[in-house]
């Protein structure tokens, strides 16, 4: 299982989109999460501890964005299960909820 420390990406996670500022959720997803998911066949643990804090937009874009990018929902839910967030355990619950919302929205909008 590959362990990704968010602090290796940045101690100061930024806004939602790359256009809004550095260390964004979009950049984390595209530059770190997706390449590691592809390389390790989804066997990934994300360690959220150590960063100064997270805006909801960063987390939603990083993890919910995986669903909107077409990553298999089972893989994303597994990543949510494996999340490590001892500093703030509520983050894991929130991220899982947003991922489920993204799955529900994605399923509604995608052609059957």
């Amino acid at each position, binding site marked *: 299982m590959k362990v990704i420390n968010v602090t290796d990406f*940045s*101690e*100061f*996670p*930024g*806004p*939602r*989109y790359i256009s*809004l*500022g*550095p*260390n964004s959720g979009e950049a984390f997803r595209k530059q770190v999460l997706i390449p590691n998911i592809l390389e390790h066949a989804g066997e990934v643990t994300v360690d959220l501890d150590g960063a*100064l*804090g*997270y*805006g*909801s*937009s*960063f987390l*939603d*874009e990083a993890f*919910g964005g995986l669903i*909107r990018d077409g990553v298999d929902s089972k893989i994303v839910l597994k990543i949510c299960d494996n999340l490590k967030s001892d*500093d*703030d355990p509520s983050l894991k619950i929130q991220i899982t909820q*947003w991922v489920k*919302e*993204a799955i529900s*929205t994605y399923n509604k909008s995608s052609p059957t």
Partner: protein
Amino acid sequence: MKKRSSYKAKHEMRAALKRAARRNRSKGRSGVIDVNPIYLRPFNGELKARKVHADAKIQVPAKLDLYSKQNFDVLCKFISNLREMAKYNERIILCFRHTHRITAAAALRMLAEVEHLQTSYGNLSFGCSIPPKRRGKYKNADKVIEAILQQIGFFKLIGQPERAPTKQTDIARWKQLSGILADGSLAGNLLNSLPSSISKQSKAQLYKGAIEAMANSVDHAYPEGDLEHSENRWWMLVGTTSDKITLIVCDLGVGIPVTLPQKHPDSLLKSIFKICGILGNGDADLIHASTFIKRSRTNQTHRGKGGADIRSITEHFPSALLSIRSNRGCYVVAGAEREGDMPDGYRQIPDTDGREWSASYNGSIRGTLIEWTVSLKELEK
């Protein structure tokens, strides 16, 4: 004819130049002027008329403050006048001579305005006159005004020599910065400069609100193609006193009351108004509604989570107070244990247990200011 002394001649000349400068000051655009002979009293000696710059001068309000309704309107008028003067003058002197009180939010708003005008008008420069040191109440015995201006970086911004750092601890703990991107490292370094007694969890909560407020400024406040708002800049100030911490994020965008109806369908706004029991559609009502928006202008349901982060500080810290001022309105939310200290001129919002209130102003702050105040004790938990 008796010759005048050179001292008297110089005095006459100086007086004439002053009269000329005064006369020209009210004629709009200033610049280099020649002394017209009509301003000179009869004088037989040799005179060399020198050129003077007629600087436009604006009086800064005695109380540079936006917490009371009356002071808010005075500040708005000052900002409006300053913008008008910037159109016609190349140099403006801000006169702080009668200013005896500057609050953090108003100081940040003034600083933002000066920087915005400097960016918008390339030839515009600013100067200032500070109050003299005098004894007594409101007499600036401790050079408080100068210390505040130094601490917020005002002198550096207008290119004046910086003053020695203040020894007044409350002011010395003010930290200010600005940027054009939602750069977490800027906010992070500012928060890391806070007292080490503040817990990591508390810093994470403050960071969460700050990064979302910065991102909102960059993303929503400044519409594309708007020449007046060509730069998506935000300003932030953190102040620490012996018992509380104040964090303020400011932008000079079009304001929440303008962006909200543009970015959201009428039906969504109407349903929020109904659920929250909002009766009017003034600026304060629209700011109130904005804190419940979960959907962005693009109708992407995943967006709009930042508003919740901004509000969540009052849920996490029972002593916290959140104030959102935008254009002509203000909306305030207090934490569950915050003692009621509603200022004059504010209206309590029904069915909120006295925890939320709002105010409508005559003047517009021309932008948005989000301010959190949290007790230090609670942040140390």
